[in-house]
């Protein structure tokens, strides 16, 4: 061993097959993986394993934060606890008060729905999943939660928090799942203006505090402060859950569509946990008598039927209720198709004030007018 070698052990030549060959092989493997992943279904097993391998990282990074949270919970002083207790008692009283009203409404709703043999599409079961405190890509709005397929989580499952719709599961590994927030630029959720019943689509902008409702016609009846609720079209989100509140309505006379900004009600950036829910999204089969004209098999799209013509063209572009993941990118009649004919029918009664919805939606709804009018009579007694 010469003294020179002792000072510098870095080899000048590399062993093994040539670098170029390795590059080509590894590069080709990477490209093959990407193509397979783009086509999704081929790689679910690999994804599952990798998510298991990634979980220790997420867990380890999250551990100090959850330890801190635990410690601060454990060390909370008597006075803060008392304060919190008092606050919760007040909140509880108020909630009970509202609940009293809702009990009656729910019963009435139930009765009406039974009358027309509709399905009760409310969240039936839920689990609470903790959000791991890890930063994913800052340009995308996604979070990792600590529940996976082992707990029954599935892709496309809706996630809510205490104040509104949070997002949906995009990937489910055995022990963890990735949730896309409603504010992700690739996410669109079919919604309804609670006051008027007008349906549209809310898309994310990539910033936590903002949603955009880009497909409302210029003459749409919408004002600041309007509550935006999920419409349940597309079958991913249960209908009638609060999504956002309209923050600004920008009417530009030269544009055919409004530009409406809304603020999500869910605490997208502050939630320590979310609820993943199961609900009965069974599609209502039209009655045998009403079937022929009631449900045209090839409806234009899930959202289009009750929107103004100008909108339905625009609304056909984003795939409703699906994050535009590669497979679903672009117009996806396959995703919207099965739900298309049926859901508009199930909806007016299930979500929001049914009366105004039906009357408001009827004039522009060319092809699906039978649906709307059919839905209206049973909803009538509510008024």
């Amino acid at each position: 061993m010469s003294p020179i070698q002792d000072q510098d052990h870095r080899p000048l030549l590399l062993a093994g097959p040539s670098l170029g060959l390795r590059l080509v092989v590894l590069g080709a493997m990477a490209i093959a993986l990407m193509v397979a992943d783009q086509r999704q279904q081929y790689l679910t097993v690999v994804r599952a394993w990798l998510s298991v391998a990634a979980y220790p990282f997420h867990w380890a990074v999250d551990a100090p934060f959850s330890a801190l949270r635990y410690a601060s919970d454990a060390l909370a002083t008597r006075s803060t606890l008392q304060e919190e207790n008092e606050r919760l008692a007040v909140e509880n009283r108020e909630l009970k008060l509202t609940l009293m009203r809702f009990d009656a409404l729910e019963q009435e709703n139930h009765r009406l729905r039974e009358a027309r043999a509709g399905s009760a599409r409310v969240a039936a079961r839920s689990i609470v999943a903790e959000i791991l405190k890890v930063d994913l890509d800052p340009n995308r709005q996604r979070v990792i939660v600590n529940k996976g397929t082992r707990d029954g989580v599935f892709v496309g499952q809706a996630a809510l928090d205490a104040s509104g719709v949070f997002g949906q599961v995009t990937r489910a590994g055995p022990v963890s799942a990735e949730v896309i927030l409603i504010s992700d630029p690739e996410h669109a959720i079919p919604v309804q203006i609670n006051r008027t019943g007008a349906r549209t689509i809310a898309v994310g902008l990539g910033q936590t505090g903002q949603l955009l409702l880009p497909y409302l016609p210029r003459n749409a009846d919408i004002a600041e402060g309007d509550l935006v609720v999920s419409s349940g079209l597309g079958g991913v989100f249960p209908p009638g859950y609060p999504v956002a509140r309209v923050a600004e309505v920008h009417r530009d006379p030269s544009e055919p569509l409004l530009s409406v900004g809304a603020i999500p009600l869910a605490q997208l950036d502050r939630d320590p946990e979310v609820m993943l829910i199961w609900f009965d999204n069974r599609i209502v089969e039209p009655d045998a008598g009403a079937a022929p004209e009631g449900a045209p098999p090839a409806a234009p799209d899930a959202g289009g039927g009750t929107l103004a013509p100008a909108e339905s063209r625009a609304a056909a572009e984003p795939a409703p209720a699906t994050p535009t993941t590669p497979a679903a990118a672009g117009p996806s009649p396959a995703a919207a198709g099965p739900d298309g004919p049926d859901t508009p029918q199930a909806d007016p009664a299930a979500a929001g004030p049914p009366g105004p919805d039906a009357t408001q939606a009827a004039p522009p709804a060319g092809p699906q007018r039978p649906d709307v009018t059919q839905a209206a009579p049973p909803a009538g007694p509510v008024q």
Partner: protein
Amino acid sequence: MARRGGASAPLIALLLAASLAATVVPLPDLLEPLRPNFVALTILWVCLLSARATGLLLAWMSGLMLDALHGLLLGQNALALVLIAYIALKMRLRIRAFPVLHQSMVVLGLLLLNEFVLFWIDGLSGHPVTAWTRWVPVLTGAATWPFLSAFLTRYAART
């Protein structure tokens, strides 16, 4: 295999694990867009200064882990990292002789290439991220290089 320069295999595995974790550690909102791509920097250090023949495979595997951690298209970081690791390995003898600031410039170029490949694949796969903030980590990465490489060479490069 008798006398390899640079860090030992378990140490490199540890370094890569640490750099993978460093890419998901939550940072304050202000610092978050500045976070350098630690995995790319570590891979570059392994390839440039410790010149391991297995650098490419390492780059590929850690790229795959990075994709899994961040929930990206599987293989996009793998491809980008393999590409810059290849260039780094090819040019390592020359780059090793550069003064540190000069090395930083080379690293800047390589990180830029890395980010460009990611940008390009994002666009091809239909989830383009066009915000200019995505290019910031390239600059911070190049700025981090002198410190990171000095640190790693001082504490990790043992035979």
